[in-house]
């Protein structure tokens, strides 16, 4: 390291200070320095150009990022709004459907169908007050869909024909063969107790038979399909294609009072209101 320098610093420092003070004293006279300042700006604009470009790029990138963030936020808000609107529309649509169903005379709306007993039972919004009694047949689109198993003042439970515990005596209209239709609890419907060798075929109509007091005769259930299975040595079970669409069950028609009329010797009333297929 060098030793002490001769010590002229203070002289030059003093001169620099004096020169600076003189400049400061002249600084308010702006016109003196304006030309120099402009010239310097012009000269420096060339070496400063890369810095200007960099600064501009950084600023534009920052703006772009900010705009993108703002757009993202806006998009999220719109998506949330869209979900809310869809939900509101769905609720409104469901309400309209409910009102439409309740406006149909003679029809009961399905108010409960539990997943665990999907093919076994449903609850409807009409009951004893509407003249519905236990045992009344329930139709959909003119086809048998089930039976009332219990009725309360404002609602009733319907056992569906696909329930494994509901067995309905039926007749094959083309051959007058009698049998029993029962569900398998999984959406399937089978014609049982028809002896092997009977000339049944696909497409034949299955209706309720006049061998039961539980259901009035002549209500269509569906048609035979070609699928069969062997239940025992001498009986074949035929799969029945139900006429009612149990996977699209919103409203049901209850033939209220048909059994009372039948027992009282009155003629069987026609199904009310429901459109026949």
């Amino acid at each position: 390291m060098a030793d002490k320098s001769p010590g002229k610093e203070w002289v030059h420092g003093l001169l620099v200070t004096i020169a600076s003070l003189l400049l400061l004293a002249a600084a308010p006279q702006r016109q003196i320095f304006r030309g120099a300042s402009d010239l310097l700006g012009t000269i420096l604009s060339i070496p400063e150009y890369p810095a200007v470009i960099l600064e501009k790029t950084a600023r534009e990138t920052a703006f772009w990022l900010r705009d993108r963030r703002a757009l993202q936020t806006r998009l999220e808000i719109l998506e949330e709004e869209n979900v809310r609107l869809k939900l509101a529309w769905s609720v409104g649509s469901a309400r309209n459907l409910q009102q439409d169903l309740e406006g149909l005379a003679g029809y009961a709306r399905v108010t409960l169908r539990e997943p665990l007993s999907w093919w076994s039972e449903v609850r409807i919004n009409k009951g004893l007050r509407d003249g519905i009694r236990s045992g009344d047949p329930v139709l959909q689109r003119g086809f048998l869909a089930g039976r009332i198993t219990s009725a309360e003042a404002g609602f009733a439970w319907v056992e569906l024909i696909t329930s494994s515990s509901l067995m309905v005596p039926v007749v094959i209209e083309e051959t007058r063969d009698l049998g029993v239709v029962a569900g398998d609890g999984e959406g399937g419907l089978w014609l049982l107790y028809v002896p092997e060798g009977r000339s049944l075929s696909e497409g034949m109509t299955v209706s309720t038979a006049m061998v039961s007091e539980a259901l009035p005769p002549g209500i269509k259930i569906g048609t035979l399909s070609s699928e069969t299975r062997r239940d025992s040595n001498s009986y074949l079970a035929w799969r029945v294609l139900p006429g009612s669409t149990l996977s699209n069950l919103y409203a049901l028609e209850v033939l209220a009072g048909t059994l009372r009329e039948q027992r009282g010797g009155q003629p069987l009333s026609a199904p009310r209101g429901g459109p026949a297929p």
Partner: protein
Amino acid sequence: MIYLLSWYAQDFLQVLGTGTALVPEVFLLTLVVLSVFRPEKGPEILWAAFFGGVLWDLRWVGFPGITSLLYGVTLTAVQLFWNSLPVSGRTVPLFGASLLGASIPIALTRIFLSRYREGGIFTAWLLQQSYMLPLILLACALYAWRLKNSDV
């Protein structure tokens, strides 16, 4: 050449950080380091500081004389202080303290002359010092390396 490069570096940073932050005083730090490393060039460095300050004022401040005055006074003080020290007392920490001390007057003046005086003077100063700290540490490392080599 080194005077021009360091001045240009500071000017470049000033363009980059226009309106956002105080730039580190690269030019002044370079002159202080040169004053320590090349004490025989003391007068030349002082006049370089003067002209660099004038250019800076003309380019950015618009009030010629302020920066050159501060640069001149600071450098004269640093040179007198450093040259008055015995050789054994010229340690690395003292060198770092001299660099830091030299940057404080000009930094405070810039803060008071700028819009930073209205909000967060301390924050603006700390921010500028944080930019300068790596440069000061680098200069200290260079000085330590030079000390070690001169001892050998």
